[in-house]
């Protein structure tokens, strides 16, 4: 009996040993499967758009330090002249067309013939402004898409730095709430708003060429729709900005204070010194965080400013063309040019909105948690 019982115990122990060995093997396989992608991470291709940012920094530190003041000013002038000369050339072309049209109208004083000649003037004004405004809409859409892609590469790095600064909730909000809002805004702008702006431009020119009042009312209604969309996205952004501050700052501050109290009280003798040392380290990391955030803002600003200037100048030029047309007595041509100016203004609004969304949110993330560690 005792031998049978001992045999049974031996079998049970052997079974348990085999089961434990099997569980250990399964655990090792699971860990290996989880680590394999990390092992081969260097061999996996990064998205080409992000890889472009990593491979082409634009200018190295040595190159930048060797640039003289005259070369810098020449480069700035070249950029500015390229941005401003083309729109003013367009204004000259519009002025020449309007002058020709008003001269042609003097040969046809009758109202019926005036409409025929003004039809040609309206078509000419639209064709002159179409290339510039089409290019502007495409550039704004492309810029917003590029900035969204830039954020996709930048935010994980920034979130990592925030975690090292002890702002875990802030990092979560950064990669979750802010990136979601930025992505949603970019998709709404590129997928809904910009096509609506194109439809608006087409409707505006059709209304000017045909002179049909319902088309003009439809054009105004479409402008109101686009402005309402921008207003809605702005309200959403403001709400997210407030949530970001509330969710991230308060919980991180509470966690930091609790951690500091535990650290200083749990470690005898050197607890306070350890707390001070960690505070110094975290202060340095916050400097890194701030520098990284401001570098991101600077990169976006460098891409934003030329496009902003281009949109602004195009809007001013087209508005001036509209005023000139009305001064020459060509009201329909003036309406088409003013509509094109409104389209440029809408592009400008969306561009500024997205830029401010990114800058304000980044500045808020830089500013949160800088009130001092444990204090």
């Amino acid at each position: 009996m005792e031998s049978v019982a001992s045999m049974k115990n031996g079998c049970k122990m052997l079974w348990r040993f085999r089961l434990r060995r099997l569980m250990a093997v399964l655990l090792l396989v699971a860990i290996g499967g989880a680590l394999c992608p990390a092992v081969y991470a260097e061999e996996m291709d990064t998205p080409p758009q992000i890889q472009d940012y990593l491979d082409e920094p634009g200018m190295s530190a040595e190159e930048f330090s060797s640039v003289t003041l005259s070369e810098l000013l020449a480069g700035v002038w070249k950029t500015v002249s390229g941005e401003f000369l083309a729109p003013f050339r367009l204004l000259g072309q519009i002025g020449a067309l309007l002058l020709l049209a008003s001269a042609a109208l003097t040969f046809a004083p009758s109202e019926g013939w005036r409409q025929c000649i003004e039809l040609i003037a309206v078509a000419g004004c639209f064709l002159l402004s179409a290339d510039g405004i089409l290019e502007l809409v495409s550039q704004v859409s492309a810029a917003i898409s590029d900035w969204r892609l830039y954020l996709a590469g930048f935010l994980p790095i920034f979130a990592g730095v925030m975690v090292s600064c002890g702002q875990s909730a802030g990092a979560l909000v950064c990669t979750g709430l802010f990136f979601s809002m930025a992505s949603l805004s970019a998709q709404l702008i590129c997928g809904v708003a910009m096509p609506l702006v194109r439809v608006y431009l087409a409707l505006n020119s059709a209304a000017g060429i045909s002179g049909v009042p319902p088309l003009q009312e439809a054009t105004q209604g479409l402008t109101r729709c686009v402005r309402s969309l921008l207003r809605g996205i702005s309200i959403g952004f403001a709400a997210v900005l407030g949530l970001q501050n509330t969710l991230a700052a308060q919980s991180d501050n509470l966690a930091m204070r609790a951690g500091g109290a535990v650290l200083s009280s749990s470690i005898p003798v050197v607890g306070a010194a350890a707390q001070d040392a960690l505070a110094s380290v975290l202060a340095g990391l916050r400097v890194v965080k701030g520098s990284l955030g401001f570098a991101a803002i600077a990169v976006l600003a460098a891409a934003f400013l030329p496009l902003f200037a281009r949109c602004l100048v195009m809007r001013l030029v087209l508005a001036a063309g509209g005023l000139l047309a009305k001064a020459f007595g060509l009201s329909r041509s003036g309406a088409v040019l003013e509509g094109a100016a409104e389209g440029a203004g809408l592009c400008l609004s969306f561009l500024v909105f997205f830029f401010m969304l990114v800058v304000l949110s980044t500045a808020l993330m830089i500013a949160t948690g800088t009130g001092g560690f444990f204090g």
Partner: protein
Amino acid sequence: MSAAQIGAVAGVAIVTVVLAVLLRPYSPVYALLASLAGTVVLLAWMLPYAAQALEWLDTFSVYLRQEEFICLIRAAGIALVAQTAQDLCKDAGMTAMGAKVELAGRCMILLSALPMLQQVVDVWSRLLQ
């Protein structure tokens, strides 16, 4: 253009009108012919001055595409000739003929603007893609 030249234009116009009014009770055909002759004389006299204006306007054509410049000048010429013919028909009491001349002029202006309108449609298709 000096005051004497515009005075000459006014003089020719007034003489033509008086002649047409005098001839109308006796022979409406000759009254119409007198009106037509006065119109042709004034147009022929005005053409060199219009050519000078067109030469000056041509200096601005470098800022535009040639197509737009030609289209505008052609439309103005068609409008001028059609308006003149329409007025002569109305003077002769042929309102229906005058309306057809106006219709023909509008169609010709539209035809000359067709290439530009085709480009407008092409831009619309690019906008709405």
